[in-house]
């Protein structure tokens, strides 16, 4: 009996490792907290395609493992996760950080350990700091705040805007870009007010805003503040059109504020509607079948990022971090959201953006760019 055991053990040891190569991808974003909906659905989109890829035997025999972490939309947590990925030699690429404020803190860490990343933070400054190991497979805030400004001027015939922001990297950045675009187009910015990111009561600010009587209010912040502001704005009887960035593209925005309170508010987001093209509609069906709920605003981007990864694996010379980085910067990927290529800074060469309006408790597409 002992002999048999010893024999099996030795054969098992002789068999040694299986020669299938696999790589690990670090996947980090907010999966708990107020922005969990965005992070989770984005990650699910990524996992959906990777699972299909692995089921088909991987790319050239390379299968992809995912190390998923929660960065809690918090720079402190994000940097811990970044360090963890850096220290793990199996991780050759990161798909990281939904929030610009988190990305701002983690990118230097990834840069130091030569770990290439696809970053999801949309603040324009991220690609202007000379990082060699990052690309941004999503439109930056220059695009995200251009469309709403144009829409306000041309379609709403707005003359005046009032800016409110939460003093965070994303909120302040995107609202400043909106203000610049709005002024450049001939509009007048009446005032810029700031709130603390923990504030829940905007009644005092709204009372000030009411006297200025702006045509539009641009609110550079994230959930749940967007919903709270919209609700209180309606309660105080402020008549301006509320314009918010992509953080508002969630059912929570409508349910937490109350459908009547967000009627007519616009949300600018980089994500196409789920029935925009046959490829996207097909993705939406698969997503629903796998996760039992509709795809989130950025699920399609997660899916497209996995398709970019596939293209990278097809074209890369080797599986080291440096090789992956070269392939990532030169990638030409055909994805569900179209053909994607990066310029020398790591920005998309062509980045679509979309504008939705809340009508009867639903998001309706009103403009694209």
């Amino acid at each position, binding site marked *: 009996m002992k002999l048999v055991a010893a024999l099996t053990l030795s054969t098992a040891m002789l068999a040694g490792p299986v020669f299938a190569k696999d790589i690990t991808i670090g996947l980090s974003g907010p999966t708990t907290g107020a922005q969990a909906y965005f992070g989770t659905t984005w990650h699910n989109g990524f996992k959906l395609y990777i699972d299909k890829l692995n089921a088909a035997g991987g790319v050239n025999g390379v299968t992809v493992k995912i190390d998923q972490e929660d960065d809690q939309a918090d720079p402190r947590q994000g940097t811990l996760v970044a360090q963890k990925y850096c220290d793990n030699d199996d991780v050759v690429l990161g798909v990281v950080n939904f929030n610009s404020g988190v990305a701002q803190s983690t990118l230097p860490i990834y840069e130091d350990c030569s770990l290439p990343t696809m970053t999801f933070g949309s603040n324009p400054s991220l690609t202007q700091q000379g990082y060699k190991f990052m690309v941004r497979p999503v439109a930056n805030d220059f695009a995200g705040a251009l469309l709403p400004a144009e829409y306000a001027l041309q379609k709403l015939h707005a003359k005046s805007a009032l800016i409110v922001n939460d003093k965070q990297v994303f909120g302040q950045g995107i609202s400043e870009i909106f203000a610049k675009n709005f002024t450049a187009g001939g509009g007048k910015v009446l005032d810029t007010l700031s709130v603390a990111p923990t504030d829940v009561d905007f009644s005092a600010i709204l009372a000030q805003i*009411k006297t200025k009587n702006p045509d539009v209010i641009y609110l550079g912040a994230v959930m749940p503040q967007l919903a709270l502001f919209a609700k209180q704005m309606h309660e105080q009887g402020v008549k301006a059109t509320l314009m918010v960035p992509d953080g508002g593209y969630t059912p929570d925005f409508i349910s937490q504020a109350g459908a009547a309170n967000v009627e007519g508010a616009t949300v600018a987001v980089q994500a196409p509607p789920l029935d925009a093209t046959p490829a996207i509609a097909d993705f939406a069906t698969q997503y629903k079948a796998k996760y039992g709920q509709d795809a989130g605003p950025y699920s399609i981007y997660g899916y497209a990022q996995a398709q970019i990864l596939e293209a990278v694996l097809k074209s890369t010379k080797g599986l080291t971090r440096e090789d992956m980085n070269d392939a990532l910067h030169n990638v030409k990927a055909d994805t569900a959201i179209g053909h994607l290529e990066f310029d020398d800074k790591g920005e998309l060469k062509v980045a679509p953006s979309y504008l939705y309006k809340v009508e009867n408790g639903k998001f309706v597409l009103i403009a694209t760019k």
Partner: protein
Amino acid sequence: MFGILIQQTFNALTIGAIYALIALGYTMVYGVLRMINFAHGEMFMLGAYGAFLVLTLLIGGIGGTGAFVLAIVFALAVIGVGLVGVAIERLAYKPLRNSNRLAPMLSSLGVSLSLVTGVQIMAGPQPIGFPNFFPDTRLQILGGTVTLVQIGILVAAFVLMAALYLLVNRSRAGIIVRAVSESRSTAQLLGINVNLAISLVFFFGPLLGAAGGILYASYYGIMSPTMGAVVGLKAFTAAILGGIGSIPGAMLGSFILAFVEVAGTAILPIISGGVLGTEYRDVLAFVILILVLLVRPAGILGEPVSEESMVYKREF
């Protein structure tokens, strides 16, 4: 201009009423036990979650609910949280009653963390929409807009505070609580049940805090496991400002703090020429707190420090 004044006054009164309901709990516990109950902000959070739970269990969903049903939900939730408060005192603070002053405070920090994490695990960490307990009607009064929710908050808060005042000053329960807060040892010698008095405080404090939580969630339409942290800190500040241990002080401090916050939002950008934005509101509030404490260390209505309430270094 007059309309704005009226508007901001309504806003400040609403916030102040919510602060006051929470600040009372801090101040009552301090008055009797000379301890800061750091878990008190979580009573406020439990109130909202409790009401939501009772509502879902009772009605099996949120929808057309009568005022009577809502009153029952409100009562059940606040009484439930009051009992939780009594249980917490028995389990986490009573065993430490005769150790040094730091022990129960640290224990309350632990309770606070446990409650937040517990709710995060059970209900999820993301904010949840909270049904409005009041019809969404707006009234125009003297050029300011006020919602029924705001009026409801004010009425409820003042009714609860008046009830507390009567309880403390006009009832037997109030007499034993006041006796114990004046001197625990003397009260014990006179045959007063000290444990009962302390339990009473730990029942009514969290009850008011929970009421504040329900009103708050109803007003803002949202609740989250961490909602007690920021508001709890503000209410604690208000209690210190008014004079910790003093019940009228807590109410006064809360309204002062709320008016300072609202005034800060309205005036700061104007007087600083746009240099200091509205986000400096809290800085202003705390600067005022520091100034008051420099002049009156015991707070506005705080009792002068007596031999009994002195905190000695050797106790830490």
